């Protein structure tokens, strides 16, 4: 049946079923990809920041498809803040721990005093731990920046 432009405009539903179903199928894969980028930081391009961006983008995609309130049910505001602070704490904590144990700031080989494995492998493990912290921070800060900007700081309906 042929219809006019105005009629089609009036019939656009509130919830977009096509977008929602596709996004549902995509989000877990994007999240796992983000985690993969964080974990394989020293073999492939990437690391904490890039993986965090992909992870944050997956939550933003969820928020775009289902609306801002649904995304706040998915990742609550308090969890978001706690994760952001934990991420920053991991980064600075490890860096300061190195300094306290007698090395330089972010000098991972000093960590060998806690757990005696050779300093070279502590380098890679230390970088890995720091990147997990950076990833957590970037993810949650990206999500909260999106929340603030999409709803002009009111954290209500949003885009």
């Amino acid at each position: 049946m042929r219809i006019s432009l105005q009629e089609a405009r009036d019939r656009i539903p509130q919830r977009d079923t096509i977008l929602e179903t596709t996004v549902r199928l995509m989000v877990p894969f994007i999240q796992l990809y983000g985690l993969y980028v964080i974990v394989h930081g020293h073999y492939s391009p990437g690391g904490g920041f890039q993986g965090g961006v992909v992870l944050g983008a997956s939550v933003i995609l969820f928020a775009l498809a289902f609306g801002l309130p649904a995304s706040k049910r998915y990742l609550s505001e308090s969890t978001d803040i706690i994760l952001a602070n934990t991420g920053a704490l991991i980064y600075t904590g490890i860096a300061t721990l190195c300094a306290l144990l007698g090395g330089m700031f972010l000098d991972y080989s000093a960590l060998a005093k806690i757990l005696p494995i050779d300093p070279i492998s502590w380098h890679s493990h230390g970088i890995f731990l720091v990147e997990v912290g950076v990833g957590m921070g970037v993810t949650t800060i990206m999500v909260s920046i999106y929340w603030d900007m999409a709803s002009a700081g009111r954290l209500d309906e949003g885009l």
Partner: protein
Amino acid sequence: MNWLVTLLMVSGVFFFAIGTIGILRLPDFYSRLHAAGKCDTLAATLAVSAIALYNLHDLSFASILVSWKVFFIVFFIFMASPTATHAITKAALIVGVEPWQRKGTRK
């Protein structure tokens, strides 16, 4: 094998070219989306599967995994491209972009 890869790749570029000419030549927004949505999906599928096929020329476990990863991009484009087209069409309809009409026909 090399010929097949070349053939797939050239046809991919051909459809990319069709899509590009399409969005440059077609008269209105909605018909441009036709060129963008369909041709780009097919072209990306052809080109990316050619890359996955070429990647298998030294057959090993690692290269098979890499080819699977390349194929994942194909799956993703297959899901993402129609969804993006749909979202853009809907946005255009809501903001009220007028479709092109042939002279003499009424809506």
